[in-house]
């Protein structure tokens, strides 16, 4: 179809009018056919009666009568056809009005939806009757807007947090640079200043990389490199790697890694998530305490746990520690000795959670203040057939 009316109302009215026209035409043809049939049957009957007295069957009388019947029928056709045009017009007008009435809420929806932009996502479209089709459409739209609102808010908060985290090392960079240029310094002091700036830069690089990783896991643009793996083996590699850090703090590592736990995961990402948990445990636990790394199967899932005897996490904080840029300054203070200049920006647990959830798993914490913390990664089993 090359020509398409822009309004649904017009389209409905035209369709309505056309349908009515076709129906009228059919009706007219039926009426005409029936009348014609009846008229000629009557004529034939009369002719048959006449034939008894008059030997010529179809005489001039018949022809005259037949012609007059044809004329009458012609007039009937004219009358019938004349009705079609106004009938179609009327039907079109009625259809237009009906459609207009029925579609009025759609126009209201459109006006409202157009007003709701990225800045006014707190508004909602009106729901006239929640039970009819348009009401359901409006309700669905509202739910969609609510989801958009939530993700825009999260994005704004994330951007603000990220800018703040970026600003801190930038400020340090600027201060170190300006101060060391202000006075005459010997080369050794300048080297020291440059080194310090490079350390800040290193932290910035880490931060930007973490942000990129998170952004990719958010929009799913970075596909996981899924492979068959053994969760216990992944945990063991992490322990091997980080044991030095625990050793340095004279912490005891208790390793209880069960027999092979088959999973299908992106190995390096899951290892990084486990490393983050163990690194936190080492970092936040006092020297001399024990840290347990344990793996085991639970029904159709595989579990890795990292248990520490650190200060623990208050129940109120347990949900928020997985949020981006959350660092619990109250109970878990940073330790500059292990944290260094490139220390975490509070993205580690958020990254770990994003990773594990991307694998269809979950990350949990059990803790009470003063009673240590247990972080748990739960991943689905690899089906034996695959």
């Amino acid at each position, binding site marked *: 179809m090359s020509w398409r009316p822009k309004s649904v109302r017009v389209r409905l009215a035209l369709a309505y009018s056309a349908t009515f026209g076709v129906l009228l035409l059919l009706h007219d043809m039926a009426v005409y056919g029936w009348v014609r049939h009846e008229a000629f049957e009557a004529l034939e009957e009369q002719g048959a009666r006449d034939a008894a007295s008059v030997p010529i069957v179809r005489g001039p009388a018949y022809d005259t009568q037949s012609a007059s019947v044809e004329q009458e029928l012609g007039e009937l056709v004219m009358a019938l056809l004349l009705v079609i045009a106004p009938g179609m017009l009327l039907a079109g007008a009625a259809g237009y009005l009906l459609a207009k009435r029925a579609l009025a809420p759609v126009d209201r929806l459109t006006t409202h939806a157009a007003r709701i932009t990225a800045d006014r996502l707190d508004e909602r479209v009106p729901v006239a009757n929640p039970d009819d089709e348009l009401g359901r459409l409006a309700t669905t739209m509202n739910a969609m807007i609510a989801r958009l609102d939530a993700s825009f808010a999260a994005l704004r908060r994330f951007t603000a947090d990220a800018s703040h985290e970026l600003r801190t090392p930038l400020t340090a960079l600027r201060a170190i640079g300006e101060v060391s240029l202000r006075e005459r310094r010997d080369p050794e002091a300048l*080297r*020291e200043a*440059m*080194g*310090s*700036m*490079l*350390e800040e*830069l*290193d932290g910035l*690089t*880490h931060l930007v*990389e973490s942000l990129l990783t998170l952004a990719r896991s958010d929009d799913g643009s*970075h596909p996981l490199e899924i492979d068959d793996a053994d969760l216990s083996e992944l945990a063991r590699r992490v322990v091997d*790697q*980080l044991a*030095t*850090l625990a050793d*340095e703090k004279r912490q005891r590592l208790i390793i209880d890694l069960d027999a092979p736990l088959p999973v299908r995961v992106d190995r*390096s990402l899951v290892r*990084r998530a486990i*490393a*983050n948990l*163990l*690194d936190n445990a080492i970092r936040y636990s006092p020297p001399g305490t024990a840290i347990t790394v344990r793996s085991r199967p639970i029904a159709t899932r595989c579990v890795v746990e990292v248990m520490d005897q650190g200060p623990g996490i208050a129940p109120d904080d347990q949900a928020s520690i997985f949020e981006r840029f959350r660092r619990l300054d109250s109970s878990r203070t940073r330790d500059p000795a*292990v944290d*260094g200049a*490139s*220390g*975490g920006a509070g993205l*580690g647990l958020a990254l770990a959670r994003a990773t594990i959830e991307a694998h269809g798993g979950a990350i949990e914490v059990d803790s009470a203040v003063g009673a240590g913390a247990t972080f748990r990664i739960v991943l689905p089993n690899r089906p034996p057939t695959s």
Partner: protein
Amino acid sequence: MPSSERPRILVIEDQLKLAHALEEGLRGEGFDVSLASSGTDGYFLATTEPFALLVLDWMLPGRDGVEVLKALRRAGHEVPVLILTARDDVDDRITGLDAGADDYLVKPFAFAELVARLRALLRRTRPDAAAPRRCADLILDPRDRRGTRGGRPLELTQREYELLDFLLIHQGQLVSREMLAREVWQETGRATSLDNVIDVTMARLRRKVDLDATTRLLHTVRGVGFILREEPA
């Protein structure tokens, strides 16, 4: 390095600050550096003058890096090429290597890393794996994986041995934490926890190697990485 042996290197990079920093740094590392600031200029230079190495920025005005690289390879130039890019998607990496790049470095990179990779591209041959490595009175023997400092045996863990071995192979050169993470710890990604592990392992190694010695061999260059060389304590 005598001047006749200075390898000629062409850096095609449009960001002038970075280009000049690379020029100065590479010159200091013994390279003979030429600069080009656009793909067109770079292609012209690369096809008219002999270079031992090419450092090529991916994003260039006029003709982008991959285009230049493809054109060079089509024209039959075999010069080793290292691509610099701010994009580190796997797809981009593959595109770069498919176009004929020999190596790939993501911005921001450590200068030490760039130098190490360029040297590797020049060398293309690994150092003799079985020959003992030495620096001053430090000797590491790969055959029995044992080390001595001034005749005193060193009690090295496996990781410490590998770390010391890597530093000895690259002695006199700056070694970044990225390089150690990749080459010694075999980690592709670089996590904060691993940086801490590297620092702690290095501190322990230093206690074993440089303890009681009049000459310190292991040095930390703040903000950059580490270097193994003879230097008075």
